[in-house]
Protein backbone atom coordinates (compact mmCIF):
# COMPACT_ATOMS: atom_id res chain seq x y z
CA UNK A 1 0.00 0.00 0.00
CA UNK A 2 2.77 2.39 0.97
CA UNK A 3 4.66 1.69 -2.26
CA UNK A 4 1.52 2.39 -4.32
CA UNK A 5 1.09 5.65 -2.46
CA UNK A 6 4.63 6.77 -3.24
CA UNK A 7 4.30 5.85 -6.91
CA UNK A 8 1.03 7.80 -7.13
CA UNK A 9 2.63 10.79 -5.45
CA UNK A 10 5.59 10.80 -7.82
CA UNK A 11 3.29 10.47 -10.84
CA UNK A 12 1.13 13.33 -9.56
CA UNK A 13 4.07 15.65 -9.01
CA UNK A 14 5.55 14.80 -12.41
CA UNK A 15 2.21 15.38 -14.14
CA UNK A 16 1.65 18.67 -12.33
CA UNK A 17 5.14 19.85 -13.29
CA UNK A 18 4.65 18.95 -16.95
CA UNK A 19 1.07 20.11 -17.49
CA UNK A 20 1.57 23.89 -17.80
CA UNK A 21 3.95 23.51 -20.72
CA UNK A 22 1.63 21.09 -22.51
CA UNK A 23 -1.88 22.47 -22.04
CA UNK A 24 -3.21 25.73 -23.47
CA UNK A 25 -4.43 28.42 -21.01
CA UNK A 26 -8.13 27.50 -21.22
CA UNK A 27 -7.47 23.91 -20.24
CA UNK A 28 -5.02 24.96 -17.59
CA UNK A 29 -7.58 27.15 -15.84
CA UNK A 30 -10.21 24.42 -16.07
CA UNK A 31 -7.76 21.98 -14.51
CA UNK A 32 -6.96 24.50 -11.75
CA UNK A 33 -10.66 24.86 -11.07
CA UNK A 34 -11.07 21.08 -10.84
CA UNK A 35 -8.16 20.76 -8.42
CA UNK A 36 -9.40 23.62 -6.24
CA UNK A 37 -12.89 22.15 -6.18
CA UNK A 38 -11.36 18.85 -5.12
CA UNK A 39 -9.55 20.60 -2.26
CA UNK A 40 -12.71 22.43 -1.13
CA UNK A 41 -14.90 19.39 -1.35
CA UNK A 42 -12.45 17.44 0.82
CA UNK A 43 -12.74 20.20 3.40
CA UNK A 44 -16.53 20.24 3.23
CA UNK A 45 -16.63 16.47 3.51
CA UNK A 46 -14.29 16.55 6.50
CA UNK A 47 -17.11 18.34 8.29
CA UNK A 48 -20.15 16.61 6.77
CA UNK A 49 -18.78 13.13 6.31
CA UNK A 50 -16.84 12.75 9.53
CA UNK A 51 -18.74 14.91 12.00
CA UNK A 52 -22.24 14.93 10.48
CA UNK A 53 -22.36 18.74 10.31
CA UNK A 54 -23.80 19.64 6.90
CA UNK A 55 -22.71 23.21 6.20
CA UNK A 56 -24.83 25.25 3.81
CA UNK A 57 -22.63 28.27 4.48
CA UNK A 58 -19.13 27.33 3.41
CA UNK A 59 -19.32 29.90 0.63
CA UNK A 60 -18.70 32.43 3.42
CA UNK A 61 -15.15 31.15 3.87
CA UNK A 62 -14.50 31.06 0.13
CA UNK A 63 -15.59 34.68 -0.18
CA UNK A 64 -13.85 35.91 2.96
CA UNK A 65 -10.57 34.30 1.90
CA UNK A 66 -10.82 35.86 -1.55
CA UNK A 67 -11.75 39.34 -0.34
CA UNK A 68 -9.00 39.29 2.27
CA UNK A 69 -6.32 38.55 -0.31
CA UNK A 70 -7.72 41.06 -2.82
CA UNK A 71 -7.87 43.88 -0.29
CA UNK A 72 -4.66 43.38 1.64
CA UNK A 73 -2.40 42.48 -1.27
CA UNK A 74 -3.26 45.90 -2.69
CA UNK A 75 -3.01 47.72 0.65
CA UNK A 76 0.22 46.12 1.85
CA UNK A 77 1.81 45.95 -1.60
CA UNK A 78 2.36 42.24 -1.21
CA UNK A 79 2.31 39.54 -3.84
CA UNK A 80 -1.17 37.96 -3.59
CA UNK A 81 0.26 34.45 -3.48
CA UNK A 82 2.02 35.33 -0.20
CA UNK A 83 -1.30 36.22 1.40
CA UNK A 84 -3.15 33.03 0.42
CA UNK A 85 -2.24 31.16 3.62
CA UNK A 86 -3.05 34.24 5.68
CA UNK A 87 -6.50 34.28 4.04
CA UNK A 88 -6.91 30.71 5.23
CA UNK A 89 -5.88 31.67 8.75
CA UNK A 90 -8.40 34.53 8.76
CA UNK A 91 -11.14 32.08 7.78
CA UNK A 92 -10.02 29.69 10.51
CA UNK A 93 -10.22 32.53 13.03
CA UNK A 94 -13.72 33.44 11.84
CA UNK A 95 -14.75 29.80 12.20
CA UNK A 96 -13.25 29.64 15.69
CA UNK A 97 -15.26 32.70 16.75
CA UNK A 98 -18.41 31.34 15.13
CA UNK A 99 -18.18 27.84 16.56
CA UNK A 100 -19.36 28.61 20.12
CA UNK A 101 -22.49 30.17 18.59
CA UNK A 102 -23.23 27.61 15.92
CA UNK A 103 -22.41 24.50 17.92
CA UNK A 104 -25.37 25.21 20.16
CA UNK A 105 -27.47 24.25 17.15
CA UNK A 106 -28.20 20.68 16.25
CA UNK A 107 -28.37 18.99 12.84
CA UNK A 108 -30.39 21.02 10.37
CA UNK A 109 -30.29 24.01 12.69
CA UNK A 110 -26.54 24.19 12.29
CA UNK A 111 -26.89 24.05 8.49
CA UNK A 112 -29.27 27.00 8.49
CA UNK A 113 -27.39 28.96 11.12
CA UNK A 114 -24.21 28.97 9.05
CA UNK A 115 -26.16 29.70 5.87
CA UNK A 116 -27.64 32.81 7.51
CA UNK A 117 -24.16 33.81 8.60
CA UNK A 118 -22.96 33.51 4.99
CA UNK A 119 -25.91 35.65 3.83
CA UNK A 120 -25.04 38.33 6.40
CA UNK A 121 -21.41 38.42 5.24
CA UNK A 122 -22.60 38.58 1.63
CA UNK A 123 -24.93 41.49 2.32
CA UNK A 124 -22.22 43.32 4.26
CA UNK A 125 -19.84 42.86 1.32
CA UNK A 126 -22.41 44.33 -1.07
CA UNK A 127 -22.61 47.39 1.17
CA UNK A 128 -18.88 48.01 1.69
CA UNK A 129 -17.59 50.60 -0.73
CA UNK A 130 -13.90 49.78 -0.21
CA UNK A 131 -14.67 46.26 -1.43
CA UNK A 132 -16.42 47.50 -4.54
CA UNK A 133 -19.99 47.05 -3.21
CA UNK A 134 -22.14 44.92 -5.51
CA UNK A 135 -19.83 45.45 -8.48
CA UNK A 136 -16.91 43.55 -7.02
CA UNK A 137 -13.22 44.34 -7.32
CA UNK A 138 -10.41 43.47 -9.68
CA UNK A 139 -7.13 42.17 -8.31
CA UNK A 140 -5.33 45.53 -8.10
CA UNK A 141 -2.15 43.83 -6.87
CA UNK A 142 -1.69 42.46 -10.39
CA UNK A 143 0.85 45.28 -10.76
CA UNK A 144 3.15 43.30 -8.45
CA UNK A 145 2.74 40.09 -10.39
CA UNK A 146 4.77 38.65 -13.22
CA UNK A 147 1.99 38.08 -15.74
CA UNK A 148 4.13 35.67 -17.78
CA UNK A 149 4.19 33.02 -15.08
CA UNK A 150 0.94 33.91 -13.25
CA UNK A 151 -1.27 31.22 -14.80
CA UNK A 152 1.41 28.56 -14.36
CA UNK A 153 2.02 29.45 -10.72
CA UNK A 154 -1.72 29.57 -9.96
CA UNK A 155 -2.03 26.10 -11.38
CA UNK A 156 0.83 24.80 -9.27
CA UNK A 157 -0.71 26.28 -6.15
CA UNK A 158 -4.01 24.61 -7.03
CA UNK A 159 -2.24 21.30 -7.57
CA UNK A 160 -0.43 21.63 -4.26
CA UNK A 161 -3.64 22.48 -2.39
CA UNK A 162 -5.48 19.50 -3.86
CA UNK A 163 -2.61 17.23 -2.84
CA UNK A 164 -2.44 18.68 0.66
CA UNK A 165 -6.21 18.44 1.09
CA UNK A 166 -6.38 14.79 0.04
CA UNK A 167 -3.27 13.81 1.97
CA UNK A 168 -4.16 15.95 4.96
CA UNK A 169 -7.68 14.57 5.32
CA UNK A 170 -6.31 11.04 4.94
CA UNK A 171 -3.72 11.60 7.66
CA UNK A 172 -6.28 13.34 9.83
CA UNK A 173 -8.97 10.68 9.79
CA UNK A 174 -6.43 8.01 10.67
CA UNK A 175 -5.20 10.08 13.61
CA UNK A 176 -6.65 10.15 17.09
CA UNK A 177 -8.74 13.17 16.14
CA UNK A 178 -10.28 11.47 13.11
CA UNK A 179 -11.15 8.31 14.99
CA UNK A 180 -12.74 10.47 17.66
CA UNK A 181 -14.75 12.35 15.03
CA UNK A 182 -16.11 9.17 13.50
CA UNK A 183 -16.94 7.75 16.91
CA UNK A 184 -18.95 10.89 17.68
CA UNK A 185 -20.69 10.75 14.30
CA UNK A 186 -21.68 7.12 14.74
CA UNK A 187 -22.79 7.26 18.35
CA UNK A 188 -22.39 10.45 20.31
CA UNK A 189 -23.40 8.98 23.67
CA UNK A 190 -21.05 6.02 23.42
CA UNK A 191 -18.21 8.27 22.25
CA UNK A 192 -18.68 10.63 25.19
CA UNK A 193 -18.74 7.76 27.62
CA UNK A 194 -15.30 6.58 26.52
CA UNK A 195 -13.92 10.03 27.11
CA UNK A 196 -14.00 11.71 23.70
CA UNK A 197 -14.43 15.47 23.91
CA UNK A 198 -17.22 15.94 21.36
CA UNK A 199 -17.04 19.70 21.29
CA UNK A 200 -13.29 19.90 20.81
CA UNK A 201 -13.30 17.33 18.02
CA UNK A 202 -16.00 19.17 16.11
CA UNK A 203 -14.28 22.46 16.70
CA UNK A 204 -11.03 21.18 15.22
CA UNK A 205 -12.78 19.80 12.14
CA UNK A 206 -14.74 23.02 11.61
CA UNK A 207 -11.69 25.28 11.89
CA UNK A 208 -9.57 23.10 9.58
CA UNK A 209 -12.43 22.95 7.09
CA UNK A 210 -12.78 26.75 7.07
CA UNK A 211 -9.02 27.17 6.73
CA UNK A 212 -8.85 24.91 3.67
CA UNK A 213 -11.88 26.43 1.95
CA UNK A 214 -10.50 29.91 2.63
CA UNK A 215 -7.18 29.22 0.92
CA UNK A 216 -8.79 27.37 -1.97
CA UNK A 217 -11.37 30.12 -2.49
CA UNK A 218 -8.72 32.83 -2.35
CA UNK A 219 -6.61 30.90 -4.87
CA UNK A 220 -9.55 30.45 -7.23
CA UNK A 221 -10.46 34.14 -7.31
CA UNK A 222 -6.84 35.29 -7.39
CA UNK A 223 -6.43 33.11 -10.47
CA UNK A 224 -9.45 34.72 -12.11
CA UNK A 225 -8.27 38.21 -10.97
CA UNK A 226 -11.79 39.36 -10.07
CA UNK A 227 -14.22 38.80 -7.22
CA UNK A 228 -17.75 40.04 -6.60
CA UNK A 229 -20.14 39.31 -3.73
CA UNK A 230 -22.41 37.40 -6.14
CA UNK A 231 -19.58 35.07 -7.14
CA UNK A 232 -17.60 34.85 -3.91
CA UNK A 233 -20.56 34.18 -1.62
CA UNK A 234 -22.52 32.14 -4.15
CA UNK A 235 -24.59 29.33 -2.57
CA UNK A 236 -23.78 27.35 -5.73
CA UNK A 237 -20.32 26.64 -4.31
CA UNK A 238 -22.03 24.54 -1.68
CA UNK A 239 -24.47 23.13 -4.23
CA UNK A 240 -21.56 21.83 -6.32
CA UNK A 241 -19.79 20.46 -3.25
CA UNK A 242 -22.91 18.64 -2.11
CA UNK A 243 -23.33 17.06 -5.54
CA UNK A 244 -19.81 15.78 -5.58
CA UNK A 245 -20.11 14.37 -2.09
CA UNK A 246 -23.50 12.75 -2.78
CA UNK A 247 -22.40 11.11 -5.99
CA UNK A 248 -18.92 10.11 -4.90
CA UNK A 249 -19.85 8.99 -1.42
CA UNK A 250 -20.06 10.95 1.79
CA UNK A 251 -17.25 10.24 4.22
CA UNK A 252 -14.89 8.85 1.58
CA UNK A 253 -11.79 10.40 0.06
CA UNK A 254 -11.57 8.56 -3.28
CA UNK A 255 -15.31 8.98 -3.87
CA UNK A 256 -14.86 12.73 -3.94
CA UNK A 257 -12.21 12.43 -6.66
CA UNK A 258 -14.68 10.43 -8.76
CA UNK A 259 -17.48 12.86 -7.90
CA UNK A 260 -15.37 15.88 -8.88
CA UNK A 261 -14.43 14.34 -12.23
CA UNK A 262 -18.07 13.41 -12.89
CA UNK A 263 -19.28 16.89 -12.00
CA UNK A 264 -16.88 18.65 -14.33
CA UNK A 265 -17.31 15.94 -16.96
CA UNK A 266 -21.05 16.49 -17.02
CA UNK A 267 -20.72 20.28 -16.90
CA UNK A 268 -18.20 20.50 -19.72
CA UNK A 269 -19.89 17.67 -21.64
CA UNK A 270 -23.25 19.41 -21.65
CA UNK A 271 -22.20 23.02 -22.11
CA UNK A 272 -18.96 22.97 -24.08
CA UNK A 273 -19.22 19.91 -26.28
CA UNK A 274 -22.92 19.18 -26.67
CA UNK A 275 -23.77 22.89 -26.65
CA UNK A 276 -26.86 22.32 -24.48
CA UNK A 277 -27.95 25.44 -22.64
CA UNK A 278 -26.70 26.21 -19.15
CA UNK A 279 -29.23 24.65 -16.83
CA UNK A 280 -29.72 21.23 -18.40
CA UNK A 281 -26.50 19.88 -16.95
CA UNK A 282 -27.78 20.87 -13.51
CA UNK A 283 -31.04 19.03 -14.17
CA UNK A 284 -29.00 16.00 -15.14
CA UNK A 285 -26.78 16.30 -12.06
CA UNK A 286 -29.80 16.62 -9.78
CA UNK A 287 -31.38 13.55 -11.36
CA UNK A 288 -28.14 11.60 -10.93
CA UNK A 289 -28.03 12.67 -7.28
CA UNK A 290 -31.61 11.47 -6.70
CA UNK A 291 -30.92 8.11 -8.33
CA UNK A 292 -27.69 7.66 -6.37
CA UNK A 293 -29.48 8.42 -3.10
CA UNK A 294 -32.17 5.83 -3.92
CA UNK A 295 -29.87 3.10 -5.18
CA UNK A 296 -26.62 3.65 -3.27
CA UNK A 297 -27.07 6.05 -0.34
CA UNK A 298 -23.37 5.83 0.43
CA UNK A 299 -22.45 7.10 -3.05
CA UNK A 300 -20.57 5.39 -5.84
CA UNK A 301 -17.42 4.72 -3.85
CA UNK A 302 -19.44 3.53 -0.86
CA UNK A 303 -21.13 1.08 -3.22
CA UNK A 304 -17.81 -0.11 -4.61
CA UNK A 305 -16.46 -0.56 -1.11
CA UNK A 306 -19.45 -2.63 -0.09
CA UNK A 307 -19.65 -4.81 -3.18
CA UNK A 308 -16.03 -5.10 -4.21
CA UNK A 309 -14.31 -4.77 -0.88
CA UNK A 310 -11.82 -2.23 -2.22
CA UNK A 311 -10.35 -0.09 0.49
CA UNK A 312 -8.10 2.53 -1.11
CA UNK A 313 -7.63 5.54 1.19
CA UNK A 314 -9.75 3.97 3.89
CA UNK A 315 -9.71 5.08 7.48
CA UNK A 316 -9.56 1.36 8.29
CA UNK A 317 -6.18 0.28 9.58
CA UNK A 318 -4.73 -3.15 9.11
CA UNK A 319 -6.10 -4.62 12.29
CA UNK A 320 -4.15 -6.82 14.63
CA UNK A 321 -5.69 -10.30 14.62
CA UNK A 322 -7.82 -9.69 17.70
CA UNK A 323 -9.48 -6.45 16.65
CA UNK A 324 -10.93 -7.71 13.33
CA UNK A 325 -13.91 -5.66 12.17
CA UNK A 326 -13.57 -3.03 14.87
CA UNK A 327 -13.58 0.32 13.14
CA UNK A 328 -15.83 0.70 10.13
Amino acid at each position, binding site marked *: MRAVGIVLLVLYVAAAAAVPSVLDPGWLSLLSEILLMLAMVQMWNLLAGYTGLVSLGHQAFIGIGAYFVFYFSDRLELHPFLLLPVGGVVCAAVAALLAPLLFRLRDAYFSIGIWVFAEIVYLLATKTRELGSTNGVALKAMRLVDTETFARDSFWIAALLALLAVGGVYALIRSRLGLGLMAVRDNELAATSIGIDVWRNRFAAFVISAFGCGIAGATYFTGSMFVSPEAGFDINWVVAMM*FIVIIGGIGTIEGLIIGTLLYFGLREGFTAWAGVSGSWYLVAM*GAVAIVVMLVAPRGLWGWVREHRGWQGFSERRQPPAMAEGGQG
Partner: protein
Amino acid sequence: MDWIETIINGVLLGALYGLLGLGLALVFGVMRVVNLAHGEFIVMAAYAGALLAALMPGVNPLLWVLPVAVLAFGAGYVLQAVLVNRTVKSGDPLTPLLLTFGLAVVLRNLMVEVFGTDPRALDGGAFTRAGVDFLGLRIGLFPLAVLVLAAVMFAALQWLLARTEWGRIVRATSDNARVVRLMGVRPNRVYNTVMGLALAFAAVAGVLLALRSSFTPYSGVERLLIAFEVVILGGLGSFWGAFAGGIALGVAQLVGQKLDSNAAALYAHLLFFVVLVIRPTGLAGRSS
Protein backbone atom coordinates in the same frame (compact mmCIF):
# COMPACT_ATOMS: atom_id res chain seq x y z
CA MET B 1 -47.47 57.40 12.63
CA ASP B 2 -45.14 56.23 9.90
CA TRP B 3 -43.46 53.81 12.25
CA ILE B 4 -46.71 52.29 13.49
CA GLU B 5 -47.73 51.72 9.90
CA THR B 6 -44.39 50.06 9.18
CA ILE B 7 -44.77 47.74 12.14
CA ILE B 8 -48.36 46.84 11.24
CA ASN B 9 -47.28 46.06 7.68
CA GLY B 10 -44.41 44.02 9.08
CA VAL B 11 -46.87 41.95 11.09
CA LEU B 12 -49.00 41.40 8.00
CA LEU B 13 -45.97 40.33 5.93
CA GLY B 14 -44.81 38.19 8.83
CA ALA B 15 -48.00 36.18 8.86
CA LEU B 16 -47.18 35.16 5.32
CA TYR B 17 -43.62 34.26 6.32
CA GLY B 18 -45.08 32.12 9.07
CA LEU B 19 -47.04 30.22 6.42
CA LEU B 20 -43.82 29.68 4.43
CA GLY B 21 -42.31 27.91 7.42
CA LEU B 22 -45.36 25.94 8.50
CA GLY B 23 -45.01 23.06 6.04
CA LEU B 24 -41.30 22.79 6.71
CA ALA B 25 -41.91 22.58 10.46
CA LEU B 26 -44.59 19.93 9.98
CA VAL B 27 -42.39 17.67 7.85
CA PHE B 28 -39.41 18.10 10.13
CA GLY B 29 -41.49 17.56 13.25
CA VAL B 30 -43.15 14.35 12.06
CA MET B 31 -40.47 12.67 9.94
CA ARG B 32 -37.26 14.42 10.96
CA VAL B 33 -36.81 15.11 7.25
CA VAL B 34 -35.30 18.43 6.17
CA ASN B 35 -36.97 19.24 2.87
CA LEU B 36 -34.49 21.32 0.89
CA ALA B 37 -36.93 21.42 -2.05
CA HIS B 38 -39.49 23.36 0.01
CA GLY B 39 -38.55 26.65 -1.64
CA GLU B 40 -38.89 25.21 -5.14
CA PHE B 41 -42.42 24.01 -4.35
CA ILE B 42 -43.27 27.50 -3.11
CA VAL B 43 -42.10 28.96 -6.42
CA MET B 44 -43.79 26.24 -8.49
CA ALA B 45 -47.06 27.13 -6.76
CA ALA B 46 -46.50 30.74 -7.82
CA TYR B 47 -46.07 29.65 -11.46
CA ALA B 48 -49.19 27.49 -11.16
CA GLY B 49 -51.01 30.55 -9.84
CA ALA B 50 -49.78 32.58 -12.80
CA LEU B 51 -51.11 29.91 -15.15
CA LEU B 52 -54.51 29.95 -13.45
CA ALA B 53 -54.55 33.73 -13.57
CA ALA B 54 -54.10 33.55 -17.32
CA LEU B 55 -56.87 30.97 -17.65
CA MET B 56 -59.41 32.69 -15.42
CA PRO B 57 -58.96 36.45 -15.53
CA GLY B 58 -61.11 38.56 -13.25
CA VAL B 59 -61.51 35.98 -10.51
CA ASN B 60 -60.62 36.99 -6.95
CA PRO B 61 -56.96 35.97 -6.47
CA LEU B 62 -57.67 34.38 -3.11
CA LEU B 63 -59.70 31.75 -4.98
CA TRP B 64 -56.65 30.63 -7.01
CA VAL B 65 -55.15 29.40 -3.80
CA LEU B 66 -57.52 26.46 -3.50
CA PRO B 67 -56.84 24.52 -6.73
CA VAL B 68 -53.10 25.14 -6.37
CA ALA B 69 -53.19 23.78 -2.83
CA VAL B 70 -55.04 20.65 -3.95
CA LEU B 71 -52.48 20.10 -6.71
CA ALA B 72 -49.64 20.59 -4.26
CA PHE B 73 -51.20 18.06 -1.88
CA GLY B 74 -51.18 15.50 -4.68
CA ALA B 75 -47.61 16.35 -5.61
CA GLY B 76 -46.47 16.00 -2.00
CA TYR B 77 -48.27 12.69 -1.58
CA VAL B 78 -46.67 11.24 -4.71
CA LEU B 79 -43.24 12.69 -3.88
CA GLN B 80 -43.27 11.08 -0.46
CA ALA B 81 -44.65 7.75 -1.70
CA VAL B 82 -42.29 7.42 -4.67
CA LEU B 83 -39.06 9.00 -3.44
CA VAL B 84 -38.73 10.14 0.13
CA ASN B 85 -40.13 7.06 1.93
CA ARG B 86 -37.45 4.95 0.34
CA THR B 87 -34.78 7.08 1.95
CA VAL B 88 -36.44 7.66 5.34
CA LYS B 89 -36.18 3.99 6.22
CA SER B 90 -32.40 4.05 5.72
CA GLY B 91 -32.33 5.65 9.17
CA ASP B 92 -29.66 8.18 8.23
CA PRO B 93 -31.22 11.67 8.27
CA LEU B 94 -28.67 12.79 5.67
CA THR B 95 -30.09 10.55 2.94
CA PRO B 96 -33.51 12.26 2.61
CA LEU B 97 -31.83 15.66 3.00
CA LEU B 98 -29.49 14.97 0.10
CA LEU B 99 -32.35 13.48 -1.94
CA THR B 100 -34.50 16.61 -1.56
CA PHE B 101 -31.41 18.64 -2.38
CA GLY B 102 -31.10 16.80 -5.71
CA LEU B 103 -34.81 17.32 -6.29
CA ALA B 104 -34.50 21.04 -5.57
CA VAL B 105 -31.78 21.43 -8.19
CA VAL B 106 -33.79 19.47 -10.78
CA LEU B 107 -36.98 21.48 -10.16
CA ARG B 108 -35.21 24.85 -10.08
CA ASN B 109 -33.41 24.31 -13.36
CA LEU B 110 -36.43 22.77 -15.07
CA MET B 111 -38.30 25.94 -14.18
CA VAL B 112 -35.45 27.96 -15.66
CA GLU B 113 -35.78 26.01 -18.92
CA VAL B 114 -39.59 26.12 -19.02
CA PHE B 115 -40.37 29.62 -17.74
CA GLY B 116 -37.13 31.51 -18.31
CA THR B 117 -35.41 33.70 -15.74
CA ASP B 118 -37.36 36.95 -16.20
CA PRO B 119 -38.97 38.07 -12.97
CA ARG B 120 -42.73 37.63 -12.94
CA ALA B 121 -45.48 38.88 -10.71
CA LEU B 122 -49.04 37.84 -10.12
CA ASP B 123 -51.53 40.64 -10.61
CA GLY B 124 -54.39 40.16 -8.20
CA GLY B 125 -56.41 43.05 -9.64
CA ALA B 126 -58.11 45.75 -7.65
CA PHE B 127 -58.51 43.63 -4.53
CA THR B 128 -54.79 43.45 -3.82
CA ARG B 129 -54.49 47.23 -4.04
CA ALA B 130 -57.53 48.14 -1.94
CA GLY B 131 -56.99 49.48 1.54
CA VAL B 132 -58.84 50.87 4.48
CA ASP B 133 -58.09 53.98 6.49
CA PHE B 134 -58.15 53.38 10.20
CA LEU B 135 -57.26 56.07 12.72
CA GLY B 136 -55.23 57.78 10.04
CA LEU B 137 -53.32 54.62 9.17
CA ARG B 138 -53.62 53.06 5.75
CA ILE B 139 -53.83 49.29 5.89
CA GLY B 140 -54.02 47.06 2.84
CA LEU B 141 -57.11 44.91 2.65
CA PHE B 142 -55.25 42.05 0.99
CA PRO B 143 -52.47 41.76 3.60
CA LEU B 144 -55.16 41.83 6.26
CA ALA B 145 -56.98 38.96 4.54
CA VAL B 146 -53.68 37.08 4.37
CA LEU B 147 -53.18 37.54 8.11
CA VAL B 148 -56.63 36.14 8.83
CA LEU B 149 -56.08 33.25 6.41
CA ALA B 150 -52.72 32.44 7.98
CA ALA B 151 -54.14 32.50 11.49
CA VAL B 152 -56.97 30.21 10.39
CA MET B 153 -54.54 27.78 8.78
CA PHE B 154 -52.28 27.69 11.83
CA ALA B 155 -55.28 27.11 14.09
CA ALA B 156 -56.64 24.43 11.76
CA LEU B 157 -53.37 22.52 11.75
CA GLN B 158 -53.06 22.82 15.51
CA TRP B 159 -56.61 21.51 15.88
CA LEU B 160 -56.04 18.68 13.40
CA LEU B 161 -52.97 17.49 15.25
CA ALA B 162 -54.23 17.96 18.77
CA ARG B 163 -57.88 16.99 18.59
CA THR B 164 -58.59 14.57 15.74
CA GLU B 165 -57.90 10.88 15.36
CA TRP B 166 -55.70 11.62 12.36
CA GLY B 167 -53.67 13.98 14.52
CA ARG B 168 -53.22 11.36 17.21
CA ILE B 169 -52.03 8.88 14.58
CA VAL B 170 -49.55 11.40 13.20
CA ARG B 171 -48.17 12.20 16.63
CA ALA B 172 -47.91 8.54 17.55
CA THR B 173 -46.12 7.77 14.28
CA SER B 174 -43.74 10.61 14.92
CA ASP B 175 -43.00 9.23 18.40
CA ASN B 176 -42.51 5.64 17.38
CA ALA B 177 -43.19 4.42 13.87
CA ARG B 178 -42.54 0.80 14.81
CA VAL B 179 -45.07 0.60 17.58
CA VAL B 180 -47.90 2.18 15.58
CA ARG B 181 -47.47 -0.62 13.05
CA LEU B 182 -48.72 -2.97 15.76
CA MET B 183 -51.88 -0.89 15.94
CA GLY B 184 -52.50 -1.30 12.24
CA VAL B 185 -51.15 2.05 11.08
CA ARG B 186 -48.99 2.24 7.99
CA PRO B 187 -46.35 4.86 8.77
CA ASN B 188 -45.61 5.41 5.09
CA ARG B 189 -49.22 6.42 4.39
CA VAL B 190 -49.12 8.82 7.33
CA TYR B 191 -45.93 10.32 5.94
CA ASN B 192 -47.54 10.66 2.50
CA THR B 193 -50.46 12.72 3.79
CA VAL B 194 -48.17 14.79 6.01
CA MET B 195 -45.94 15.68 3.06
CA GLY B 196 -49.03 16.43 0.97
CA LEU B 197 -50.38 18.73 3.64
CA ALA B 198 -47.00 20.44 4.08
CA LEU B 199 -46.73 21.19 0.37
CA ALA B 200 -50.35 22.39 0.31
CA PHE B 201 -49.42 24.95 2.97
CA ALA B 202 -46.30 25.86 1.02
CA ALA B 203 -48.42 26.33 -2.12
CA VAL B 204 -50.86 28.67 -0.40
CA ALA B 205 -47.95 30.72 0.90
CA GLY B 206 -46.31 30.65 -2.53
CA VAL B 207 -49.32 32.06 -4.36
CA LEU B 208 -49.97 34.71 -1.72
CA LEU B 209 -46.33 35.80 -1.69
CA ALA B 210 -46.32 35.98 -5.49
CA LEU B 211 -49.20 38.47 -5.24
CA ARG B 212 -46.93 40.75 -3.20
CA SER B 213 -43.50 40.41 -4.76
CA SER B 214 -42.06 39.20 -8.04
CA PHE B 215 -40.41 35.83 -8.42
CA THR B 216 -37.98 33.94 -10.67
CA PRO B 217 -37.08 30.24 -10.68
CA TYR B 218 -34.18 31.17 -8.41
CA SER B 219 -36.44 32.69 -5.73
CA GLY B 220 -36.84 29.28 -4.13
CA VAL B 221 -33.46 29.58 -2.42
CA GLU B 222 -34.25 32.79 -0.58
CA ARG B 223 -37.76 31.57 0.25
CA LEU B 224 -36.35 28.39 1.70
CA LEU B 225 -34.03 30.48 3.85
CA ILE B 226 -36.94 32.57 5.15
CA ALA B 227 -38.92 29.41 5.87
CA PHE B 228 -36.00 27.94 7.79
CA GLU B 229 -35.48 31.11 9.79
CA VAL B 230 -39.15 31.14 10.70
CA VAL B 231 -39.03 27.54 11.91
CA ILE B 232 -35.86 27.97 13.91
CA LEU B 233 -36.92 31.30 15.39
CA GLY B 234 -40.18 29.75 16.47
CA GLY B 235 -38.58 26.76 18.05
CA LEU B 236 -39.06 23.15 17.19
CA GLY B 237 -42.50 21.62 17.58
CA SER B 238 -44.35 24.83 18.17
CA PHE B 239 -46.57 26.01 15.35
CA TRP B 240 -47.56 29.17 17.15
CA GLY B 241 -43.86 29.76 17.72
CA ALA B 242 -43.40 29.60 13.95
CA PHE B 243 -46.20 32.13 13.56
CA ALA B 244 -44.49 34.44 16.04
CA GLY B 245 -41.14 33.83 14.35
CA GLY B 246 -42.62 34.81 10.98
CA ILE B 247 -44.03 38.02 12.42
CA ALA B 248 -40.72 38.91 14.07
CA LEU B 249 -38.95 38.44 10.73
CA GLY B 250 -41.56 40.42 8.81
CA VAL B 251 -41.32 43.37 11.20
CA ALA B 252 -37.50 43.24 11.18
CA GLN B 253 -37.48 43.24 7.39
CA LEU B 254 -39.78 46.25 6.96
CA VAL B 255 -38.15 48.22 9.76
CA GLY B 256 -34.79 47.41 8.14
CA GLN B 257 -36.10 48.58 4.78
CA LYS B 258 -37.12 51.87 6.33
CA LEU B 259 -33.73 52.40 7.96
CA ASP B 260 -31.73 51.38 4.92
CA SER B 261 -33.67 50.86 1.73
CA ASN B 262 -31.39 48.29 0.08
CA ALA B 263 -30.60 46.04 3.01
CA ALA B 264 -33.95 44.84 4.29
CA ALA B 265 -32.88 41.21 4.41
CA LEU B 266 -29.74 42.07 6.39
CA TYR B 267 -31.80 43.19 9.38
CA ALA B 268 -33.97 40.10 9.32
CA HIS B 269 -30.87 37.91 9.23
CA LEU B 270 -29.24 39.86 12.04
CA LEU B 271 -32.36 39.52 14.18
CA PHE B 272 -32.26 35.79 13.54
CA PHE B 273 -28.66 35.60 14.60
CA VAL B 274 -29.19 37.64 17.76
CA VAL B 275 -32.11 35.43 18.81
CA LEU B 276 -29.91 32.42 18.16
CA VAL B 277 -27.33 33.78 20.57
CA ILE B 278 -29.81 34.56 23.31
CA ARG B 279 -32.17 31.62 22.89
CA PRO B 280 -30.84 28.72 20.80
CA THR B 281 -34.13 26.88 21.34
CA GLY B 282 -36.16 29.58 19.61
CA LEU B 283 -38.82 31.98 20.82
CA ALA B 284 -41.31 29.37 21.99
CA GLY B 285 -38.88 26.51 22.56
CA ARG B 286 -38.44 25.04 25.97
CA SER B 287 -35.05 25.86 27.42
CA SER B 288 -33.91 22.43 28.45
